[in-house]
C-alpha cells in the first residue's frame, strides 16, 4: 500500500533548488525533534521557531523547484515521496541532534554559512531566488545570533559544557567542507548569475566562526579532511531513519489531509 517514490527530472536548476530545500527541511526536522525535549522551555520554543523558519524556506524552494520542473510534482510530493538516495542535502544537517552542544554547533556552522549564502543570493539574476534569499537572510541572521550566543556560553561556561562543545566541533568539522563545494551542474548556474560560487564566502565563514570559537575559549578542529556525498544522494545512515519518520504518514496513507 505504501506510496511509491516519485521521479524528479533534475535539470541543473531543479537540482540546485532541491539541494537548498533539502538542507532547510532536514535541519528544520532535526530541530523539531527537540520539541518537548529541550533543556528548558524557553529553548524549546527557540529551537522550534528556528525549525519553522527553515520549514518555511524549504516550502518556498520546493514550490519553486516543482514549478521549474513542470511535471506535476508539488512541495508535498518532493518532501514526502523521494527516497533517501534522492535527497540532496548536506551531510551536516542530517547528523543526529546528539547532546545540546552538538545541536548548537551544527546550527552555528550551518547558520553562519546560510546567512552569508542568502545575503549573496539576494543578487541572483533569478528573481524568485532573489526574493526567497531576501526573506531567508533576515531569518538566518537571527539564527546566527542565537547559535553564536549559545556557543559563547557553552564554551566559556562550565568545564562540562566546554568539553561537550569542543567534542561537537571535532565531530562535525568534517561535514563543513561540503557547504563550499561546487560541481559541474552548479557551475553553469554560477556562470549565468543565478547561483553564487560558495567558495567565495568561505573566507568570511571561517573568519566569523573562528572569531566566535575563539571568544568562546574553544578551538577549531585541526583536520582538513572533509566528508562529502550528500549533494549526490550518498548519505549517512541517519537520513533514512529521519525520512522514515518524516514520510511515514504520507507513505502509508497517500494524500492524507487533515
Amino acid at each position, binding site marked *: 500500500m505504501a506510496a511509491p517514490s516519485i521521479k524528479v527530472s533534475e535539470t541543473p536548476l531543479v537540482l540546485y533548488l532541491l539541494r537548498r530545500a533539502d538542507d532547510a527541511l532536514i535541519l528544520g526536522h532535526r530541530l523539531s525533534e527537540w520539541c518537548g525535549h529541550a533543556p*528548558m522551555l*524557553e*529553548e524549546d*520554543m527557540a529551537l522550534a*521557531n528556528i525549525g519553522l523558519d527553515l520549514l518555511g524556506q524549504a516550502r518556498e524552494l520546493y514550490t519553486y523547484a516543482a514549478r521549474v520542473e513542470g511535471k506535476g510534482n508539488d512541495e508535498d510530493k518532493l518532501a514526502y515521496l523521494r527516497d533517501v538516495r534522492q535527497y540532496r542535502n548536506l551531510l551536516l544537517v542530517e547528523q543526529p541532534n546528539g547532546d545540546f552542544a552538538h545541536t548548537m554547533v551544527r546550527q552555528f556552522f550551518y547558520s553562519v554559512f546560510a546567512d552569508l549564502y542568502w545575503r549573496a543570493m539576494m543578487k541572483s539574476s533569478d528573481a524568485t531566488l532573489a526574493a526567497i534569499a531576501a526573506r531567508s537572510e533576515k531569518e538566518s541572521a*537571527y539564527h546566527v*545570533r*542565537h547559535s553564536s*550566543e549559545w556557543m559563547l556560553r557553552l564554551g566559556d561556561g562550565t568545564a562540562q559544557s566546554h568539553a561537550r562543545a569542543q567534542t561537537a566541533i571535532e565531530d562535525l568539522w568534517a561535514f563543513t567542507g561540503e557547504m563550499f563545494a561546487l560541481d559541474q551542474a552548479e557551475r553553469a548556474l554560477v556562470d549565468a548569475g543565478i547561483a553564487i560560487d560558495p567558495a567565495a564566502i568561505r573566507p568570511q565563514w571561517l573568519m566569523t566562526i573562528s572569531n566566535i570559537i575563539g571568544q568562546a575559549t574553544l578551538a577549531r578542529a585541526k583536520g582538513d579532511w572533509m566528508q562529502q556525498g550528500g549533494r549526490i544522494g550518498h548519505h549517512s545512515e541517519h537520513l533514512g531513519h529521519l525520512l522514515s519518520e518524516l514520510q511515514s504518514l504520507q507513505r502509508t496513507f497517500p494524500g492524507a489531509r487533515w
Partner: protein
Amino acid sequence: MATPTTPLWEVFIRSRNGLAHKHCGSLHACDATMALQAARDIFTRRGEGLSIWVVPSNAITASDPSEKGMMFEPAESKIYRHPTFYEIPEEVGHM
C-alpha cells in the same frame, strides 16, 4: 525550572510606536542577552512587538498583598478624585 543559573526575568513589550511597554510575562534565562532572545522567541512570534525590555524579576520592588486594605481601599471612597463632574465640550472628543 528555576535554577540559580537561570534566574527569572520580567518581559515588557511595546506593540506600536507611541504606546508604552506593557508587562506580558516572565521567563528564565542565564543572562540579559539570552533573556532578550528568549523574549523575542516566546512573546513576539506573531508580530506582537516592536520593542522588548527585560528586567531581572528580583529588581522589582512589589507592594505586599497583605497590606491591600491600607494601600488601596482608602482610594475607593474618594469618587471626587475622578474627573466625572466636568462637562467636556464636544470638540475635545474622547479623553
